[in-house]
């Protein structure tokens, strides 16, 4: 008895090799299908990094200008902070600051005096935000040197000030001019200071540029009648992972004097809480984006497989088993998904890193707003974004091939051949 004829292809088809040959057989079709995956993967990576950049921008701007990672204030200050009450303050900085700075989790403790003032050029008054800071220690935080547009930084012990560029423009003041600052003291008396404008600031935060007056801490203390005191001490974590728990660590290790309170930036509510909501909303948006990217892949893959119904019918007529046929088509989808995702990942990463380096200037859109947000968005690339995009490309490519493959194998070979 002769042995039955064995078709090596039919018996044990080398699926991977066959699938690879199939993808190369029609280069135009493969490129078309693959390009959908490339674009989708690259777009997902860029959008994820851009979204992460926006969130980081807002959180950083808020931490650097408003909250730190933890903030020590007078008891009740945070509930009234929109009034900037100077009478609720942090006294005894001479003892408090060294103690805070010696804590291993604290990278820096920055005293600031924040108050609502009137800035006067002798002809007009404009409401402004006065901030007294320790210029030397603010480097890398509020970073006055980086904000400096023209002129130079005010010097401690001198009646000098640096103005937001927008405020300086409105008052028609330039370095060398005199400015009168009218405000309140911690005793709620009127306070005043005549200073020389030494420089203008471009912080990148629109509302600050329109209203900020930066003073040496000692001059702000003089204006507010707050010797050895500040309205707040901002604490920054040495380790990024300890940002959220810094307030708890400080409370445990450093007894906070009476009538003071320390609060985590996560407890400050409004804006960061809003960011959590926004993060959820952006997550939903990204799911839709990824679904759209997936649909593009599905659509292209579907067309590519359906147009091969006749070819698949022929393979079935030649004896290729249904399971093998399905695996063959899905493997082709996987190959295209992998290749497309890899190229898309490289492309998306490249764009994200490049834009992340140069930034996207949104200052025109932010002008006039009081939202603490830097005027340049830097997309924040992370390897997990590549994993998400690649997973999307590969999984969608394979799944998208499954349906037309199932449809093709359900047809009788003769019917498939007629199509």
């Amino acid at each position, binding site marked *: 008895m002769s042995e039955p004829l064995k078709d090596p292809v039919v018996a044990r088809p080398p699926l991977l090799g066959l699938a690879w040959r199939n993808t190369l057989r029609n280069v135009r079709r493969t490129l078309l299908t693959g390009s959908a995956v490339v674009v989708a993967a690259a777009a997902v990576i860029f959008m994820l990094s851009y979204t992460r950049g926006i969130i980081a921008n807002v959180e950083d701007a808020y931490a650097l200008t408003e909250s730190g990672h933890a903030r020590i204030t007078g008891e009740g200050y945070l509930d009234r902070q929109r009034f900037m009450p100077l*009478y609720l303050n942090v006294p005894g900085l001479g003892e408090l600051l060294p103690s805070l700075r010696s804590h291993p989790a604290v990278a820096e403790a920055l005293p600031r005096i924040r108050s609502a003032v009137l800035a*006067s050029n002798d002809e007009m008054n404009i409401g402004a935000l006065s901030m007294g800071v320790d210029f030397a220690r603010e480097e890398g935080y509020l970073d006055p040197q980086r904000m400096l547009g023209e002129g130079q930084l005010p010097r401690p012990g001198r009646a000098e000030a640096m103005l937001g560029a927008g405020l300086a423009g409105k008052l028609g003041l330039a370095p060398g001019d005199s400015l009168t600052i*009218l405000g*309140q003291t911690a*005793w*709620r*008396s*009127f306070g005043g200071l*005549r200073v020389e404008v030494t420089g203008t600031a471009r912080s990148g935060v629109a509302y600050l540029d329109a209203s900020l007056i930066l003073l040496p801490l000692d001059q702000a203390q003089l204006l507010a*009648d707050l010797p050895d005191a500040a309205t707040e001490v901002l604490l920054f974590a040495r380790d990024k992972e300890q940002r959220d728990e810094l307030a708890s660590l400080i409370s445990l290790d450093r007894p906070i004097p009476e009538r003071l309170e320390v609060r985590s930036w996560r407890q400050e509510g409004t804006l960061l809480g809003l960011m959590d909501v926004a993060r959820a909303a952006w997550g939903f948006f990204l799911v839709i984006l990824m679904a759209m990217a997936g649909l593009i892949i599905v659509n292209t893959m579907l067309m590519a497989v359906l147009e091969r119904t006749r070819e698949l019918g022929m393979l079935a007529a030649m004896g290729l088993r249904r399971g093998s046929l399905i695996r063959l088509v899905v493997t082709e989808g996987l190959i295209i998904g992998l290749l497309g995702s890899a190229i898309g990942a490289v492309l998306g990463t490249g764009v994200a890193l490049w834009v992340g380096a140069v930034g996207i200037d949104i200052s025109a859109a932010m002008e006039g707003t009081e939202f603490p947000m830097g005027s340049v968005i830097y997309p924040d690339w992370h390897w997990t974004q590549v994993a998400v995009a690649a997973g999307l490309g590969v999984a969608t490519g394979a799944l998208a091939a499954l349906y037309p493959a199932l449809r093709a194998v359900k047809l009788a070979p003769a019917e498939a051949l007629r199509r």
Partner: protein
Amino acid sequence: MTSRQPRTPSAPLFGLLFAAAAAATVIPGTVVAQEVREPTEILPRGDVQQVNDPAEILRRVDANLTFSTAWTRARMTIHYRAGDVRTLEFESWASGETRSFLEFTAPARDAGSRFLRLEGVMWYYLPRVGKSVRIQGHMLRQGLMGSDFSLGDATENPRLVEAYDAVVEADSTLDGRPVRVLYLTARTDDVSYASRRAWVDTERWVPLREERYARGGRLLVSVALGDVRQVAGRWYPFRVEMDNALQTDTRTVLETVELRLDLDVPERYFTLRHLEGGS
């Protein structure tokens, strides 16, 4: 140059910061160089029941608490709920209803701070800045040197009988004094307080207590007046304690240390030049 001021009645002292000279305590023996003027009629107790017209009561209050010119040296003590106490001293000159000048003399960090009120407009001189600033808008809601007396109170000085309609609510006693409780409703919108309730001493025609309300009926200010003494034929509350409901962590006591009434006040006192340190 000095000039004699016309004898136009000034604002009611009650409620006026710049008229603190007369609204604060006069320490016996310190009242000097005041001119003699017609004393306000001091009604015997038996006459109390005869004054039922609330407008007449306000007229008597106004008559007691108005003057043509005044100079005062006063002490303002701000008590903070946290336990801190801050004491400031000042001198003030007032002429007529519309002009007054005030200069803080202590403590050292506030010495030289000056206020000038002219025709309802207020100016403030900051010695550290070396220039004067017109105070307007929301700044008028701030307390004078952080006290419970608002600058708005200082710029507004209506004669009660002209600015308010009054009704008698009750007769009572307050700290052993017979009082008539009046409820005052503002006739126009251009006064700081839409309504007031005043406990008026019916023998001396001086309010001993007052509550001032916003339009919606919210209590804005509580005032207690005490140590009422007769000076130059008038009854004055020489100690005024103010509690501003908008500034919940303080209360302010104003005491007059020295008072002169109806004296010659140089015209130059009420000029921006004088405010800024010129002669």
